[in-house]
């Protein structure tokens, strides 16, 4: 078990008090697992990802514990986290296209990274970087280029190389494929798989709103709704036999190649997610759920209904108990 997150809660400070964006979230990642984290905008998926590497001024950890490779990750302590970033936990930010400083060449950025982490075997690391650059099909002259000289897909790939250069145990990839063209999307997705297979990263959390990308690259998928986990299972299970009504509705709303309006009418999910400031009690999906019943006014537990399949829904728990 390389990563384990227990009852983690993260809140944003605001003038009207704390807004809990991630509420009592628990999950774990096996070695070599790529976990997909999916949800609508405002579901707290990026907050969860960011909290594992950098809690900025606006955020605070309200409770819970994160363990990485058997040691507790001091996520609330920005200073103690500094040496662990890039070496233990690393992030490919949401806007990776603009994450590279425009005034520094890629090579200079790499130097900065090595210096700030006091890397001793510089030459070895640089040689390894060149090897990886070639591995993903770029030429090593990218080191002498500025970020604006690279295309969007190249920039995205260079950012991933930099983020994973020091072989972090956990990589958090936040919407890494969202702004890319389909063909580039595929190259970046396959690059993540390849880096995992070669052991450059031990495990990864891929955050996205696009379930079909996760179906390609993730081993397991976790669905998040309004700050809480709704369902977690292997990719095949989520795609083929989802149990949570929200997951089912999400999957039913996805158009696929071959599905046309005159043969199949897809349906969306009526309503919109609740706002952070005004969370309903009980199940947060209740108002949009076609199966809601009396018990849904209480908060459902995030239970293992089948081996490896966790769901937070009263209806599913009841059916599983029968």
């Amino acid at each position: 078990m390389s990563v384990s997150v227990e009852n983690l809660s993260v809140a944003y400070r605001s003038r009207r008090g704390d807004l809990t964006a991630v509420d009592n979230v628990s999950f774990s990642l096996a070695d070599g697992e790529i976990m997909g984290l999916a949800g609508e905008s405002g579901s707290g998926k990026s907050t969860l990802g960011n909290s594992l590497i950098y809690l900025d001024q606006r955020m605070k950890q309200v409770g819970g514990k994160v363990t990485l490779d058997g040691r507790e990750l001091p996520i609330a302590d920005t200073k103690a986290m500094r040496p662990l970033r890039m070496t233990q936990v690393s992030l490919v930010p949401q806007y990776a296209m603009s994450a590279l400083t425009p005034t520094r060449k890629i090579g200079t950025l790499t130097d900065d990274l090595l210096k700030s982490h006091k890397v001793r075997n510089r030459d070895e690391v640089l040689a390894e970087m060149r090897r990886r650059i070639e591995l993903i099909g770029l030429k090593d002259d990218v080191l002498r280029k500025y970020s604006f000289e690279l295309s969007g897909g190249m920039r995205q790939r260079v950012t991933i190389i930099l983020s994973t250069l020091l072989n972090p145990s956990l990589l958090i990839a936040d919407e890494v494929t969202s702004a890319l063209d389909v063909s580039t999307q595929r190259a970046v997705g396959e690059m993540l798989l390849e880096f995992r297979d070669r052991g450059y990263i031990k495990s990864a959390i891929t955050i996205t709103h696009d379930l079909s990308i996760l179906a390609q690259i993730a081993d397991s998928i976790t669905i998040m709704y309004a700050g809480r986990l709704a369902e977690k299972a292997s990719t095949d299970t989520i795609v083929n036999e989802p149990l949570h009504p929200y997951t089912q509705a999400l999957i039913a709303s996805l158009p696929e190649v071959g599905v046309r309006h005159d043969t199949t009418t897809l349906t969306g999910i009526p309503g919109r997610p609740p706002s952070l400031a005004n969370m309903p009690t009980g199940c947060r999906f209740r108002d949009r759920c076609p199966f809601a019943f009396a018990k849904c006014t209480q908060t459902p537990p995030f239970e293992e209904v089948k081996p490896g399949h966790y769901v937070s829904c009263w209806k599913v728990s009841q059916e599983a108990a029968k």
Partner: protein
Amino acid sequence: MSVLKVDQVSKLYRSTSRGGGLTPALRKVSFELREGEVISLIGESGSGKTTIGKIVLRLVAPTNGTVTFNGKDISTYSARGLRDYYRHVQGVFQDPFSSYNPIYRADRVFELVRDVYFPHVSDTEWDAKLEAALDAVTLNPGDVLGKYPHQLSGGQQQRLLIARALLLEVKVLVADEIISMLDASTRVDVLNLLVKLKRSGLAILFVTHDLSLGNYVSDRTIILRHGAIVEMGATQKVFGNPQHDYTRMLLSSVPELHKKWQHTPLGPVVVSANGSAVATDVIEAAPGTVASALAHATMLDELTHTEQVIKRDVRAMFAGRGGRQAAVAVALEPPALSEFEPDHLVAEPE
């Protein structure tokens, strides 16, 4: 009957950096849009899909070629004629969050339409009109009127903008990536709305980079690459039996829920801008190998390379003074289209 006809439209953008080179954004694109038809324009970034939308909305002028609406060349419209043109042709764009002015209420967009097009309509008549338009986009007036943009969801904002277009006697709607910024759960509602409007006779130009969305909603499909049409025709034919390597590559890259990516070797990518042909190697995987990032990435860089060659050639041509017209003509010459089957045109490899 075709409402809108795009005929041999080309557009060269002059870039402000890199020595003022010219980029061919569109190369002799022609198609017709019929009443009650949805055409999706599909392409990757830089394919010129948005430029077509902008030209149709007369936001940019084409370098060459004409767009005719109901038989009349739209470039001939003067101020008054243009106002009438916009009565019939409207656009909705990608980012709902920047389509509104955040300091005004969202329904101000309706007031602006009223000021320009319906100055003499009474309040009761206007309210009835507004209600009908909101009803058509399945919005409840109480939910959206009087609200500020930040109080509405992305889907509601986009539907308001479509309702705004419906207030006019709109015949053609240019929908430029209107759902790419929406969440999955609300996306489909907007898509289904487009289908409903199409059935009532609205012609829609659906600009997107997402093949599965285009496939769901459109009757005909145009695949664009580097400003030229590579394949066009009935959606089922283009998606069901793609003929061009580029279309196949795009389709093979689409992430699908129930199907994992497969690595199928692609045909040769041949570059022939300005007559000089540059052949690149066929990228083939040994049988049984899983797609690797390397193989796919190499292919991508070859494609990027094609683009660079085209740009460089166009720049070179404009560096010399003589024979400017001829040079433009060569640079703009798109690969020839031939009919593969009825209502299915395929371009020569480029």
